[in-house]
């Protein structure tokens, strides 16, 4: 069905002169090219030998090679793959724990009334204003006393209470009708059963979008692990990539190797992005309150 307004629009579209439409496409194509260009340089560069990068770093590879990836796999006896798996493990476990803890707290804030509720919630929300950079130094001191520096737990546990995730869970759960919960309660379901068998399954789409956002944030994290981790064994790949060297410091930066490494960390995200585009883009507007 085409209603009056859209008809008016269709008319105004056909009236819009062709040059205007061409100009619009030109503008958007230019923007898209600029957006994609660095990604193209990265991927095509990862298939070029270093000698080609010095003469042709912006075109398609002329001397296509997989050598960069082979060297990357063998770099420092498999250090890259190890740190890649570190990143996967750290990001995945942080995200899962964040979602569990946030959905539980969000459920309590959304579906219960209790003493101190608003005060607690306000206190949590205020923390979104505080930059994580402030926490860096005291956490560094505390974790060094606890002997947590250079470990996996230091990269997972402290990030578990995520206020943003909790807030989003509460927002979503506010839209779950109470009748559902009341009915379950009449049927004799306990608090925990209502949470696991009713609230969680209903929240899957929201938790999914939230999970993508949180995973991506942790995957991309650089500053925090750079301060907390000095042992190679525990480093995520993002901390390793910038420090790649070959044949000592004198031989210059191995750009070919670095571009292959960058491609390695970006490609999985691109695949997820194009597979789950809508969810991804929705998570942005969902996250527009995020600092």
């Amino acid at each position, binding site marked *: 069905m085409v209603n009056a307004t859209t008809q008016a629009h269709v008319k105004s579209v056909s009236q819009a002169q062709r040059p205007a439409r061409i100009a619009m496409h030109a503008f*958007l194509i230019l923007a898209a090219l600029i957006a994609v260009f660095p990604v193209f340089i*990265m991927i095509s560069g990862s298939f070029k030998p270093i000698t080609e990068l010095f003469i042709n770093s912006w075109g398609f590879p002329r001397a296509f090679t997989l050598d960069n990836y082979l060297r990357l796999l063998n770099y420092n006896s498999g250090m890259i793959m190890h740190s890649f798996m570190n990143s996967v493990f750290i990001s995945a476990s942080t995200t899962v724990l964040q979602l569990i*803890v946030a959905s539980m707290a969000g459920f309590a804030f959304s579906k219960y009334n209790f003493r101190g509720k608003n005060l607690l919630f306000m206190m949590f929300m205020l923390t979104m204003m505080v930059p994580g950079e402030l926490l860096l130094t005291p956490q560094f*001191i505390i974790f060094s006393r606890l002997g947590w520096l250079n470990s996996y737990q230091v990269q997972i546990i402290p990030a*578990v209470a995520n206020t943003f995730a909790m807030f989003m869970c509460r927002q979503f759960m506010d839209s*779950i009708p109470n009748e559902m919960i009341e009915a379950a309660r009449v049927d004799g379901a306990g608090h925990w059963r209502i949470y696991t068998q009713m609230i969680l399954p209903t929240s899957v789409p929201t938790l999914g979008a939230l999970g993508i956002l949180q995973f991506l944030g942790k995957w991309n994290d650089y500053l925090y692990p750079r301060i907390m981790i000095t042992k190679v064994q525990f480093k995520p790949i993002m901390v390793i990539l910038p420090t790649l060297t070959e044949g000592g410091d004198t031989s210059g930066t191995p750009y070919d190797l670095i571009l292959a490494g960058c491609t390695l960390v970006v490609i999985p995200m691109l695949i997820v*992005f194009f597979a789950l585009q809508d969810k991804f883009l929705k998570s942005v*507007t969902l996250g527009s309150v995020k*600092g």
Partner: protein
Amino acid sequence: MAKASRTGAVNRPRRQIAPYLFILPFLISFLAFFLMPVIYSIVISLMKYKGYGTMKYVGVDNYRRLLTYGAMWNSLLNTLEYFVLGMIPVMIFAFLLAVVVRSNAMARWQRVYKPLIFLPQVCAVVASALVFKVIFGTNVGAINQVLGTSINFLGDSKLMKLPVICMLIWRNTGWYFIIFLSGLTTISDDLIEAAKIDGASSAQTMFYVTIPVMKPIFMLTFITYAIGAFKLYTEPNLILAKEEAPLAVAPFVNMITTNINSGALGMACAAGWILVVIIMLLTLAQMRMFKEGQ
């Protein structure tokens, strides 16, 4: 069932422990890893402490030293420069792109352009910074190769900020584009149509209808951009160095990291609190600015 709100809380306040138990994991983690460090950092910021040995109370000395320290002001100015020079183009491009993509002539093409313009956001910051290092490299750089020059973008103190700002624009535009786009979608077609019927040109519609309606979204994005901008760390440090960028181009967060690295932990905490104050002032200033503008 007679209930005031269909989706609000189910229970009246009464003594029950279930909600507290559900909040407990969050609360414990919050207290241990957020509140305690925050309070501890106030204490440390008043101490001279190397991370081992004894702490010595020095009062506000750390703050005074930072505020009279040229490098701190320098890093603050650098951050301000990255912030302003990045934000203006980001906001302009993001808004223009959103308006064009939203226009009816482009409706069919939205699905093609939207993900492409958003693409930079999906690329890891570290990887993007390293790629920009390659793009702006003197010999290895695409820009120099295309221009046939050998400009030292990454080493010349007058040019060094350019690659960083370019990356900030490249990376952030997609994010704000999506936010503006979702804001524009909330403006009903009827409103625009009514303006047209009243004889408004597209420019007039833009300035008298679209932009005023978008004002709250602009305000929110300015604040989130400003907060993000002052937390800038990865981009300048990885484009212009392997770990820490030289002082002349270092962002403010480097005041925290270099002090941690050199074992001046009191100074690092004080720098952290200065960052908090800056962010709060900025937020307040922008809120006031927008209130007056309305």
